[in-house]
């Protein structure tokens, strides 16, 4: 469970980097004056993060220029991504037509890589699974992954993962409309900040488990000490007991000797 959460965080960091760098890269021009393609291969998992094979094969395809004139402007813009805020938050979801209500959540913040230019608008068709996108708000690859009575899952960049889920409540009918936007907030952190917070969290978890281990070990020691106190053997004690019983034995055998002597004496007198 814990491991799963860490992988999620790492994947989100990677997604954040991949999406932002790709978006910026595609706004620039390569050395041949062509519009830049993707810089990183599209992937959901951090372990599969890799520079696009097209670029590896031909480094002229790196879109470092912000104009067709081969300046270095886009490279500068890409280096500035590290100072760019990472989170985008989901605005309150407005139900403009219909009586139901909806609450949304972002499942992978790394996939939210730009503010929406206008509200994302979804309209319900005749059935609960028939939602359509009326306005993609600038996320041109926006897709509805699944929809039913209680939940609509959205994929922001066409990679098959549910990046945003909208939980629906109430009654929904044909033509009902949902509206929301994604926006960056000043209080949010950069990709680097997100990663270092994540790393500190992992450290805290490890340190916490180490402390817990120590605590449990102490308790275990305490318990076994108590158990030993009850059931254990103390050599000194046993030795002293031994001496005690030896003394008793000695005394008893001395009594026996004396009785035997008495008997002998008695017998001698009788003869």
């Amino acid at each position, binding site marked *: 469970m814990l491991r799963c959460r860490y992988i999620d965080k790492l994947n989100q960091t990677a997604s954040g980097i991949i999406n932002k760098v790709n978006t910026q890269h595609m706004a620039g021009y390569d050395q041949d004056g062509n519009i830049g393609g993707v810089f990183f291969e599209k992937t959901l998992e951090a372990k599969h993060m890799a520079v696009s094979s097209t670029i590896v094969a031909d480094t002229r395809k790196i879109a470092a220029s912000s104009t067709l004139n*081969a*300046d270095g402007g886009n490279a500068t813009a890409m280096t*500035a991504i590290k100072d760019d805020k990472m989170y985008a938050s989901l605005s309150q979801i407005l139900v403009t037509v219909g009586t139901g209500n909806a609450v949304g959540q972002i499942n992978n913040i790394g996939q939210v890589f730009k503010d929406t230019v206008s509200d994302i608008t979804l309209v319900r068709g005749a059935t609960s699974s028939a939602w359509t996108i009326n306005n993609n708000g600038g996320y041109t690859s926006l897709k509805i992954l699944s929809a039913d009575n209680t939940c609509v899952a959205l994929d922001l960049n066409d990679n098959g993962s549910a990046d945003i889920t909208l939980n629906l409540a109430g009654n929904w009918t044909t033509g009902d409309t949902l509206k929301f936007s994604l926006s960056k907030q000043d209080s949010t952190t950069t990709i680097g900040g997100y990663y*270092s917070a994540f790393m500190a969290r*992992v*450290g805290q978890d490890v340190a916490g488990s180490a402390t817990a281990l120590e605590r449990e070990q102490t308790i275990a*020691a305490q318990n076994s000490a108590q158990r030993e106190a009850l059931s254990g053997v103390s050599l000194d004690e046993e*030795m002293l007991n031994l001496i005690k019983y030896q003394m008793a034995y000695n005394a008893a055998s001395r009594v026996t000797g004396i009785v035997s002597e008495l008997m002998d004496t008695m017998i001698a007198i009788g003869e």
Partner: protein
Amino acid sequence: MICRVAENMKYFVLTSSLSRVQVKSASLMEKMSTQKNINRPSDDPVGAGKILNYSSKITAIEQYQNNITNAETWLSLTDTTLSSIRDLISEALGIAVSQSGAVASNETMDSSAEVLSGVIDSAMALMNTKQGDSYIFGGSRTDVAPFSLNSKATTIGVAAGMATNVFDGAVTSGGTYTGTQEKTYAVKIINSGAFGTATCKISNDGGKTWSDTPSVVPATGILSLGEGITMTFAAGTKDLTTNDVFTLKASLASTISSASAAVVNTFDGTVVSGGNYTGAENKAYAIKIINGGALAAATYQISSDGGRTWGATKTNLSAPVTLGEGVTITFTAGTQNLAANDLFTVNAYTAGYYQGNDDSLIVQVGKNNNFIYNITGSDAFTAANGPSVTAAISNPAALTVEDTITLARGDSAGSWAITNHDQYPDMVITSMSDTQITIDADNDTTPDITLTLSDGKWQKGNTVSFTIMEGGTPLSPVLSSVEVEGPGTVDLLGTLNALKSALEAHDIKAVSAQIDDLQDLQTQVLQAQTKTGSKSASLKIVNTGLTALNEQITSMKSDIEDADLDKLIISYQMEQIALEASYNLAAQIGKMTILDYLR
């Protein structure tokens, strides 16, 4: 409370305390051997987070410093190049001075022209200096040589007569301009008469100076003005009359490159550029397809800054599309439709030799601190973006005689002085600011002429001159166009080429006419050099700041991360003592039993 100590317990306590001591000393050993307090995040989660933060700051600072080093290399190359170019200008100035004197002969002029063409070649090479793969004077257009040896195209403007002229026939311009600079030609009639008898004087500087001897207007009406230009008069009802003035402007023309399509485009039809570029600086226009389709259906966006920013999405490419400022592009369908992201570009050049642009090259030298490290060729070597002035008459009654007025600028915007006002002895400046100068011609406190100055770029040594022309009736005077001279207004290659053609034509007057321009050029290039120097200086300051910041952050990081060996050794020694005590205890513990005391 344990009230009974069993033997097992003794050994258990002994082993666990021994292992505890050993774990502690092992961790101390690790800290000592790595010299770091934090070897994994769990050692100090908060500290580890801070370290990561500091590390990324340090990496960023190192990157900024690398950027600064690169920019400094660029600037020092710019500086030495500018200084070499200044030497070449001095050489050209030397030639101009020596060849405009009495000792000049056709032979010396010819040989000087040879020398000068060498100077031009070297200047050209220097202006196209490269740092790595980038031309340093091309603005952001670093992949194309910014200067070409020949001016690209010329135009001759429409010939116009003064409104006050008596002559009522038509006048037209013609020919191909062979000059290398923008010039305003003027023809003034000296003696009235029909074609073949009327005489005129010709000026090639907008009416400031006139040819010494009048020439006859040919019977054909076709008058040759020089440098390939002709002015053709067609007879009207009235003859050419004394003081009739006709002007035309000959200039270097702007050009538009042929449209080019990106190699990866899907579209295989043809694209053709056209129109007359009216912009003030070189630009790269681009057109990008947003939604593909046939010409009429596809949607597109236009950029006028080489693709950095894009305009609104539009539709229909079946008719010629105006990219802006007179540039058009026309698509003809091929077998493949337009597809999204197909890209087409057209370069538009203003008149002259410059093919770069006015963009800045920017590098990050700090967070949110973008530094411009280039000097554009247009700033240093051309008249583009130079100062300009428009003049207007506010009180015609005061301007009664023809005269050429010249003003010179001192150190500051408030230090203009009138240096030439022969016919107006009482002329004074009534007010002057960064943007406006008002002149009172007869010192009656009423401003008579208003000069409006363009923004910025004014330097000490700039002069402004214009001619008051008496337009027939005494109370309707007109002003000639205003000539601005001095640093910032001279085109380097144009001036050198003009000097060369003057030498080749053995025209002493034309040679000496270039001396002023060459002197201004020296100042102009020197100013560019000063700018380079101040850029270098401010980079050094930024760099010093970054080094100090780096030191500070490194020490803050070190405080958290690095182990204090003295402390570690002391704690290690304490642990050693504890360990020894534990061992001793362990060795002793077996010996101590009640048996020892039972004898």
